[in-house]
């Protein structure tokens, strides 16, 4: 079943085309990787789906419903959550409060006791247990990226958009992040991720979409993408194992 369908989505900034008529869909339960060189329009595409910016033209359907011009908080309530490439935590609030906010503004509403329990469970799941009362700004970058994910999960998404959650992490942390993504998937969450860590993309994705200059230039299984000549030329720069 298609959980997300994007039809001819286009975004102009002044005269510049950031995303040009991109079509794709995501099936329920899938993990889809989104790759491409810097400036290809990956984050803009996420912003268009999450409602942060409105498209110049094109349509986004979530579970068959048109969500193109909804506000981010409405889109969130329908079941799409995201993280930010440059972390946007509530830095003076504690780690727990960061997650609690998402729980408390969810529909249907939960009691504070239930929300607290759930947040502690989520922080445990993501590996931030014991840091609940720390202000978010005091977490190291890896911890901040995890908190972004926990906060998004607390909204109970059906589709999770991860924008470069592995950027700036060391190899051990990357391996942990890959594990986390697999476990999030086991919870029944569909995932779309932007990533430059190719090993991670090849490892977790069922399907990969490649953007270049705002256009979709390839789509397919990780192995097909790794062998695709256009993709090698514009982005990969050489063959990679998969």
């Amino acid at each position: 079943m298609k959980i997300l369908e994007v039809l001819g989505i286009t975004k102009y900034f002044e005269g510049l085309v950031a995303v040009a008529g991109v079509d794709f869909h995501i099936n329920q339960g899938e993990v889809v990787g989104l790759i491409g060189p810097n400036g290809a329009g990956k984050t803009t595409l996420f912003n268009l789906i999450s409602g942060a910016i409105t498209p110049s033209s094109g349509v986004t359907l979530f579970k068959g419903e048109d969500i193109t011009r909804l506000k981010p908080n409405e889109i969130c309530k329908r079941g799409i959550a995201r993280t930010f490439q440059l972390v946007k935590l509530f830095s003076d609030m504690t780690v727990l409060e960061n997650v609690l906010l998402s729980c408390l503004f969810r529909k249907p509403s939960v009691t504070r006791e239930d929300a607290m329990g759930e947040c502690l469970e989520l922080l445990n799941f993501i590996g931030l247990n014991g840091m609940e009362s720390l202000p978010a700004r005091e977490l190291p970058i890896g911890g901040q990226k995890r908190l972004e994910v926990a906060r998004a999960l607390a909204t109970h998404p059906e589709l999770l958009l991860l924008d470069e959650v592995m950027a700036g992490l060391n190899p051990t942390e990357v391996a942990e992040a890959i594990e986390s993504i697999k476990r999030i998937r086991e919870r029944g969450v569909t995932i779309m991720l932007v990533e430059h860590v190719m090993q991670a993309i090849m490892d977790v994705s069922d399907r990969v979409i490649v953007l270049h200059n705002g256009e979709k230039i390839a789509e397919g299984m990780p192995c097909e993408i790794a062998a695709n000549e256009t993709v090698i030329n514009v982005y990969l720069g050489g063959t990679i194992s998969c």
Partner: protein
Amino acid sequence: MIMDISKRGRYLWYGRGPILFSGLVLVAAILPLFMDPFTTISATNVFIYVVITLSWTLFSGPTRYISIATAAFFGMGIYTSALVGEMLPFPLVVCLGGLVSFILALLVGLSTLRLKGMYFNIFTFGLSELIRHSVLWWEVTITGTVGRWVVSVDPVPVYYSMLIILVITIAVSFFIGRSRYGLALRSVGQSEEAADHMGVNVTAVKVGVFAISAFFAGVTGSTMATRWSYIDPSIAFNPLFSFMPILMATFGGIGSITGQIIGATVLTLLADLLLTEFPYYYMLIYGIILVIVILFLPGGIMGIWESLITKRQKETNENT
């Protein structure tokens, strides 16, 4: 072990906080029986500044949207009192003043809360001035006068009116602060975009709380107009009423209700004292004191208090 807002809230609700608070309210309620009119008026004055400080901080504290429009909402309350004071009973006039400010804030909020940072500050300041000059223009051109007489009310009923408003303001500040909306306001102050993406209807939360904050400035204005008996636009929309709550909140400590109450009380009493002792140098001395406080006490009075507590905790930790 985990200090979370819900637990802190519960502690204050069942702990010493409410007992102390009720005790203070009770003392304040019987005080007028023993006070001369001058002291009653002085105490009322303290209540006014505590209320506008709390109401300003309710919105501007957590969201970091520094509003310089308190005078606009305060002045709307004053003018409501001047217009309908003769026709309606006092409590109704007060409520109406709050309502007018509430509605004005809703309209202003919906059109301007997309502005951020400096643009928002300048706009709110401009709004106050715009309203002041519009009222002035109206009075001169249409009514044919500049000032108005307001039906005067005795100091003691005004004192009680302000005391009730004060208690409600403190309660509302407390409960909004501990509720999920308090959390949402803080999240807006730190990353509005992220708050929006986590399911918070940021526009509704901001405009709603901005209007509630304006309501309290409005009721205060309506109450006070009855003490002044004569008003004109430059008295009613005096920009000082916009700046005072910002100074008093900063002086006391923006993060804490107790801090704001102390800050507003100390600065109001100080202003009264300087005004009577040094009528010509009052503003000069007041200004110097404020500059010193802002320079040397960035966290306000509550900042000193907190650093003392942490110091003592450190010492006990070292001793054990």
